[in-house]
């Protein structure tokens, strides 16, 4: 680079050179082996994901399948140990909306039937994971299995209803900082990824509602998809 800088400086100082540089390659500057990349020592990338509560027992399911969902966005750091093994950390925001079934007889969280009703819990979460890669590859994420654990602070705990009054007006009621919702959550996570795309699963070990309120638990298992934000 210094050589071409010299030319450029002369172009300015003497004003006699106006040659257009069509191609320039600085090989010398390219000799340092990179350490940042999808399959290099360090790799940091963003991700977005969408998950859905998954039920194993419909009888105790109080949320609407398909409509309840969780949106995730975050940043992830991966440290390569070998071509087949890596460790990772991530930090992200998670917003989960549990939309409550309104079918009578309704028992959760109470017996009032609303037009719409949901618990919205937003979490600042961090996780740690072990990544097992399958197949030798170059500087690519490749195919992988992640297993780890997460924990987070439920910074937003909201309960919201929407109803229609006699005037055909929409009435929205919202209650925040719910005392009966736990402040923290934690659980296990897993991902199966192929390149930037991954199937995700999270299993919440913590309860949503404080045990002293004796409320039934919402689905613990969340499955979804995730897209890594990298080239």
């Amino acid at each position, binding site marked *: *680079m*210094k*050589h*071409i800088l*010299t*030319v450029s400086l*002369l172009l300015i100082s*003497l004003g*006699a*050179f*106006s*040659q*257009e*540089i*069509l*191609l*320039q*390659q*600085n*090989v*010398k500057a390219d000799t340092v*082996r990179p350490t940042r990349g999808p*399959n290099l020592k360090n790799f940091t990338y963003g991700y977005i994901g969408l998950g859905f509560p998954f039920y*194993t027992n419909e009888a105790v399911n109080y949320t609407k399948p398909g409509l309840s969902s969780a949106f995730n966005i975050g940043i992830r750091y991966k440290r390569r140990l070998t071509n087949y093994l890596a460790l990772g950390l991530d930090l992200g925001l998670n917003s989960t909306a549990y939309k409550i079934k309104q079918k009578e007889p309704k028992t959760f969280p109470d017996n009032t039937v609303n037009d719409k009703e949901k618990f919205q819990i937003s979490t600042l979460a961090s996780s740690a994971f072990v990544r097992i890669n*399958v*197949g*030798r*590859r*170059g*500087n*690519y994420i490749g*195919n*992988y*299995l992640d*297993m780890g654990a997460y924990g987070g602070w439920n910074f937003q705990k909201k309960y919201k209803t929407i109803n229609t009054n006699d005037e055909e007006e929409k009435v929205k009621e919202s209650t925040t900082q719910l005392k009966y919702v736990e402040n923290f959550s934690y659980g*296990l996570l*897993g991902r*199966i990824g*192929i390149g930037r795309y991954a*199937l995700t*699963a999270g*299993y919440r*070990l913590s309860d949503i509602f404080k045990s002293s309120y004796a409320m039934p638990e919402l689905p*613990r*298992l969340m499955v979804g998809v995730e897209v890594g934000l990298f*080239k």
Partner: protein
Amino acid sequence: MLKSKFLFLLSGFLFLLPLLSEAQQLCMVYFKDKQHNEFNPYSYFDAKALERRIHNGLPLDDPSDWPVNEAYMNEVSLMVNEVIIESRWLNAMAVDADDLQINTLRQLPYVLNVEWIEPSEMNMAGYDDYDTSVNTNEAKILEGQLKTLGVDAWQKAGIDGKGLRIAILDVGFDHADKVPAFDHIRNENRLIATHDFTNRKNGEYVYYGNGHGTQVWSCIAGKIGDIQIGLATGAEFLLAKTEKSSEKYSEELYWLAAAEWADKNGADIINSSLGYTGKRYFNWQMDGKTSFVTRAANIAARKGMLVVNAAGNEGSDSWHYVGAPADADSVLSIGGIDPETGYHTSFSSYGPTSDKRMKPNVSAYGHVIAAAPAGLTSTQGTSFASPLVAGFAACAWQTNRSLTNMQLFKEIEKSGSLYPYFDYAHGFGIPQAGHFLNKDEVSTTPTFTVVENEDSIRIVVNKNLSDKNGASQNPEFKAVKGVTTESSGKQEYLYYNIMNKSGVLDSYYVLDVTQPEVVSILRSDFHDGETLNVHFEGYSISVKL
């Protein structure tokens, strides 16, 4: 309850885990020996293969040419799911086997080693939709792709690659059995053999799948009426299908098997417009010895064949560098030229190799007109620069059959439009027919002057640049290499590089020359032992700094 759900989740992952890996597990089984009692090269090889070996001073009875032991193969084939290929050069078999079978194979007394073959992905140059019409711009490219390689001179000398046998290793030759661009070859029975290495059941049928190989073939030898697409219209051909679009494991194995087949069938030249890069390798593994296909290509060259390979199309990508096997020292790697500008086209992969050897070796048009299954088409990629040079190589070899493959390799480098100047974008530039046909006509008329002062070095061109786009007004300023007379006319570029004392370029530039004083460089910017190399219109000079 919690535990059971966790187990459910875990079991789900474990169930899905195998999906991450491919169902096939391809392995290379290497044998300790061949245990051959007798090998008759005269019955085993094609006459041309024997001729090439004799010509190159190679032994006819070389153990690496002995077939793999049949008893070993028979026994192994009964123990695995499928045999993919066998390789006499590596004394090995590629097989599809599970872990248990691999363990059993390892116990065999004659098995040296079992290596798992990793997945890879082929990178192939673009195969655009064809257009039956050739517009003005395309006609210009079609003319230029051969004119830059001296088609007029070759034709005048009656050179068309006759007597040379070229093997093309490619993804498929869709409709090449019907495309009229190859009528002259079929009519004269110069298509010697074909083989589909990707599907044993297909045997010799290669005319399906992908038209990439059809286009590549046309860039070597295509001709429709008066329209000539490649230079070696008189050569003989071997077509090998070594790729299939859905197969991610075996390409390099098929490449090896096809190279051995080409060797056996008397090929003089192999053209491979294929490359393997980041899906499998890191670019620092492009050191000419790491990748499987690179090792195979070097063995092919050791057998006396000239291996011509596309440099790759990653010049604009993060990969940036040549792929495998273009990194092999014995492979003539071909970079791409933009017909519009006359210098490196942006997608053409750069050198050097990771061990700092020059690649590509030479260049040709990376944007071409080729014969696709249903007509002429405009397409781009070093995939097509490579066959243009393969055709050139056949013509060059025809002029002097006493050359060995590596002597020809060096002569093609010397024929480059920039030679002795080089850089890692163009190699030695575009090969010139004149080097092989009229060596005596090469002159060394200086086209620029290097003015050395105490503090700086200036490069001043010896040319009236008032008519920048026209012909030179100076009768003494006559191009000494073909590029100025044979290419598109946009050659007023000055190339310079800074070479360190190890002979490796630290940096290089191409400048558009619009004024006589092109470059001024301060001496204080350089280290001891560095060299400034400059090239302008056929004339090169080196200055020790």
